[in-house]
């Protein structure tokens, strides 16, 4: 299996993506921004389609679209705290659907790229080039470095936004930076799993880890570990069978989540974080 160059590339890419997604996804689940994460992932589909249409590198389309959408979602005019939750969820939904519609338009304008469409949406690990691996590594390094810088204030702002604000943490700015990082992570993952199945590496490992450990550092490391194992296992399984990698990655991720007790109902909302867009 490792004699094949594309499999080596796929494993390297999946390792890079697993580390990035495990770390950034952990914060995403903690901040309850899964909907935003899904939207940023889905946006990579029109981004890639637009890049193909314009004749530029697909990587440019992936990252450009995700970062752009992250900024759009972050800059939505906020209003009073109670109302902003429902407005935010409406904005995210609108951004997502409009981006997808743009994707449909680009595909229709381009004409005849239906085979590529399925792999854009559901992933393919066969065509990862050396250049793509390099891009993934560079973006992952930048994103993880940025996450390392904002990790402490971000964690503070997530756990208790009001106290953080009172202590002088730039809650809003940290949130914007995080959405941009989330966009990068989503764009990375979607190059492996396809735009629709990004949650396999972004949500499931993080949710599993948060069930297993309440201590932040240990939980983040656990999340990265689960993401790596799920990604590798998915590649191996897909290599030895005819079924798509996206199916295996999501199934292994979901299995890990179930093992971690993910579906057990949580205690009531007393003391829980405010209900965010779900």
């Amino acid at each position, binding site marked *: 299996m490792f004699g094949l160059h594309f499999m080596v590339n796929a494993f390297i890419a999946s390792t890079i993506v697993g580390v990035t997604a495990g770390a950034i996804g952990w914060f995403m689940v903690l901040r309850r921004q899964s909907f935003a994460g899904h939207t940023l992932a889905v946006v990579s589909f029109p981004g890639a389609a637009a890049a193909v249409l314009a004749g530029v590198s697909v990587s440019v389309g992936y990252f450009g679209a995700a970062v752009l959408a992250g900024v759009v979602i972050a800059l939505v005019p906020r209003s009073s705290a109670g109302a902003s939750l429902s*407005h935010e969820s409406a904005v995210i939904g609108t951004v997502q659907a409009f981006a997808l*519609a743009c994707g449909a338009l680009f595909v229709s304008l381009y004409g005849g790229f239906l085979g590529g469409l399925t792999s854009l*949406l559901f992933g393919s690990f066969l065509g990862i080039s050396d250049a793509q691996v390099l891009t993934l590594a560079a973006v992952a390094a930048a994103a993880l470095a940025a996450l390392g810088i904002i990790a402490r204030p971000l964690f503070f702002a997530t756990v208790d936004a009001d106290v953080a604000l009172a202590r002088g943490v730039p809650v809003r700015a940290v949130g914007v930076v995080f959405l941009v990082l989330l966009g990068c992570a989503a764009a990375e993952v979607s190059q492996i799993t396809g735009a629709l199945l990004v949650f396999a590496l972004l949500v499931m490992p993080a949710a599993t880890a948060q069930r297993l450990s309440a201590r932040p550092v240990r939980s983040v490391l656990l999340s990265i570990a689960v993401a790596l194992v799920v990604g590798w296992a998915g590649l191996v399984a897909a290599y030895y069978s005819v079924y798509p990698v996206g199916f295996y990655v999501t199934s292994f991720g979901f299995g890990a989540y179930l093992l971690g007790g993910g579906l057990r109902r949580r205690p009531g909302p007393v003391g829980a974080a405010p209900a965010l867009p779900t």
Partner: protein
Amino acid sequence: MTPVVALIQPLAGIAHLLAHPFLRYAVLAGTATAVASGVVGYFLVLRAQVFTADALTHVAFTGALGALIVGVDLLAGLYVACVVVALALGGLGWRGRADDAVIGSVFAWVLGLGALFLTVYSASSLGSNGTAGVSVLFGTIFGLSGSQAVADAAVAGVVVVAGLAIARPLLFATVDEGVAAARGVPVRGLGLSFLALVGLTAAAATQAVGALLLLGLLAAPAGAAQRLSPRPYRALGLSVALAVGSVWGGLGLAYAYPLVPPSFGILAIATAAYLVALAVTAGPARAPDRRVQVRPGADGVAAGAVARTPPP
């Protein structure tokens, strides 16, 4: 040819448009879907549950492909998958609301199954070239048959009637969950029935606007309506009107410019309406939620109210 007719003589253009049976079906199914989405979407946005709807519209994809593989009617797969997953998501959560990590994990796995079904279906069948999956995802409103359009309209009618029937208690349960529960409103039952309605809408709309694009029809008109009016029933009506307007405008665009996919036309207009609403109300936002904070003692009545209203 047709763009000229449509642009110069609007009435003649519309008459010309409705002369085609496939366009009549598209207008019928599109209008019915839009009305249902307007009603359901209003409550989705108010309850901040758009992500749940997002999950359900994706589940529709797996349901449809699963039905194709088993060989039963595609519609049966759509309805069963959407409603079952809707109830499951509701049942997993507190008071009929699931945690977003749960939603994300469940629907990602269901979509993964969809990817598997797509491969099985493309490999096994029957002259398929992968377009079945694509048309489920992006909709084929111009390809509806008469009976499909009527079925869509019937389901949408059921959703609208049921949605309006539970509108009052649902509104109460949404705006102040804790007080509603204390007053004996069946908060959990309402949440579950509402999710079942969302599932039905998702299933009915999948053929017309597509699994991926329905979300825009649910979120954009409702979001715009809530920006424009703080009064619940007026905003509900506005949401329906904007959704219907988007569908009609989108169909007209797609008819006038064949290169534009109808789904894109519909969503472009819905998004534009939302942007206009954002621009018009750029000042302090108005939404029914705000009144929760004004009501004295609401936070003290039940713990649920605290979860809905973070301090300003």
